[in-house]
């Protein structure tokens, strides 16, 4: 066989594999948009559900998800970034830190329902936060910690070693060096990781199942010790627990959920490219 023919075959296979990666995404999005767009309206987004959730909107679920996501990032971002700084900048390479690193990698592989049970045991029962936004947000935060730590560590490791050396050689302390010569250049990567973890938190059902999510609530939550409805759980309920619900309502809910996650991901990409342009080396 001629080399050019071989090359053509190889590239075709590679191309097909790439298409196979994209195809499910396109298909899923296509189905959701096709079946759901008619259900989307201002009223759907901003009113309470009615008639056993068969009518009305999904406003409380949207609000609940926003609460959960924003509160969880308040916990997970500072802790995650600081842990990443410690691991990447200060910690010596010894058995302990290697174990910690291994633990972090493994934690990101733990299935989300396990985090849910953990949150139930620790926050709801042991710490007596009850089934509440606080418990749910903390559970989501813990689930996201490995993601944020890993992303932040990679961002920090991506800052050239020489920046640290220059700064230290000018007589700055290690902390000054990290604060002024490392962290500013790692921010794009850290933010991207944070936003991607937000998107994951918004979409997960299992961690909120036992810790916060309500089947139906007539009012919006008033404090972080209240329960709340949330989009992924709401979608699960209207898809499995409530008979005779319009198909377009289900798909419209899915559309909103995917739309929120998608928007966050786009934000992540835009912020990264903006910041990278300013701080390039």
């Amino acid at each position, binding site marked *: 066989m001629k080399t050019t023919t071989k090359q053509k075959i190889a590239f075709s296979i590679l191309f097909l594999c790439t298409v196979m990666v994209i195809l499910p995404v396109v298909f899923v999005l296509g189905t959701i948009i096709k079946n759901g767009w008619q259900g989307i309206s201002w009223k759907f987004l901003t009113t309470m559900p009615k008639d056993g959730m068969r009518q009305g909107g999904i406003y409380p679920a949207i609000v609940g998800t926003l609460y959960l996501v924003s509160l969880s990032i308040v916990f997970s971002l500072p802790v995650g970034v600081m842990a990443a700084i410690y691991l990447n900048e200060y910690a010596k390479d010894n058995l302990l830190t290697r174990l910690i690193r291994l633990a972090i990698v493994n934690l990101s592989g733990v299935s989300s329902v396990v985090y849910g049970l953990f949150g139930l045991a620790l926050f709801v029962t042991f710490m007596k936060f009850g089934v509440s936004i606080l418990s749910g947000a903390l559970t989501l935060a813990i689930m996201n910690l490995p993601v944020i730590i890993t992303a932040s560590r990679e961002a920090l490791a991506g800052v050239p070693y020489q920046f640290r050396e220059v700064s230290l050689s000018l007589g700055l*302390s290690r902390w000054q060096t990290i604060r002024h010569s490392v962290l500013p250049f790692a921010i794009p990567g850290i933010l991207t990781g944070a936003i991607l973890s937000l998107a994951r938190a918004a979409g997960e059902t299992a961690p909120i199942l036992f810790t916060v999510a309500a089947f139906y609530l007539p009012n919006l939550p008033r404090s972080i010790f209240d329960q709340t409805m949330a989009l992924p759980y709401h979608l699960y309920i209207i898809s499995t627990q409530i008979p005779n619900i319009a198909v377009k309502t289900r798909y419209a809910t899915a559309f909103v959920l995917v739309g929120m996650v998608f928007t966050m991901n786009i934000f992540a990409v835009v912020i990264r490219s903006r910041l990278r342009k300013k701080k390039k080396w």
Partner: protein
Amino acid sequence: MVENRADIQIKIKVKQLNIWFGNILALKNLSLEIYSNELLSIIGPANSGKTSFLRQLNRLNELEANFRSTGEVILDGENIQKTKLEILRKKAGMIFALPQVLPISIYDNVSYGPRMHGMREKGVLDKIVEESLEASFLWEEVKERLKESATKLSGGQQQRLCISRTLALKPEVILFDEPCSGLDPVSTAKVEESMLKLKEKYTIILVTNNTKQAARVGDRTVFFLMGELIEIDKTQKIFTAPADKRTEDYILGKFG
């Protein structure tokens, strides 16, 4: 130029310095004196301990996890291990082999050190930036675009910017670690020119792979081989009548 023994002031005194990285002895039992306002060139093939020695002088070696050393380095009569790290590194500034500018503006690069050490007054900073850039002969080329990113400068300009950044801290000793290894001949000439000028005010130690550079700029030259000091003398002497055969062989390019 250091001619008369009576005029000589010893700036740095190194006593029986040994440096290890893990099990590798990078520098063996080194003792030497460096005089005020001289330009001392250190030549020698790769792995001869030149850079390890240089990085010992402002304790950058300590960044390596498996580094260990014995012996003493005395700067201005004080053991550097007892000096506060911040003060030592301000006093002995380092210029690295490749220009290491930070991806911030030219102005911010030069003022970085003083700002971090607590100087906030704009007027004072402006003055430091101008003086430092003038001292490295870069002012005329960049005075109109101080707010531009330093990464846009050419390699030679970047290296001179690094010199300015070090000068901004008003050091007494400047450590050059093969500062021209990545530069073209024209940029090299400019960096050398600034080194010769700087010698009037500062003590300069230059590690170089380029023996011709040592011959051009050094007052004295020291030859390192495999972590040992082979010979130290006036540059002219080293390059015309070296005492040791190995020095001669290296200078003539027979090995290295």
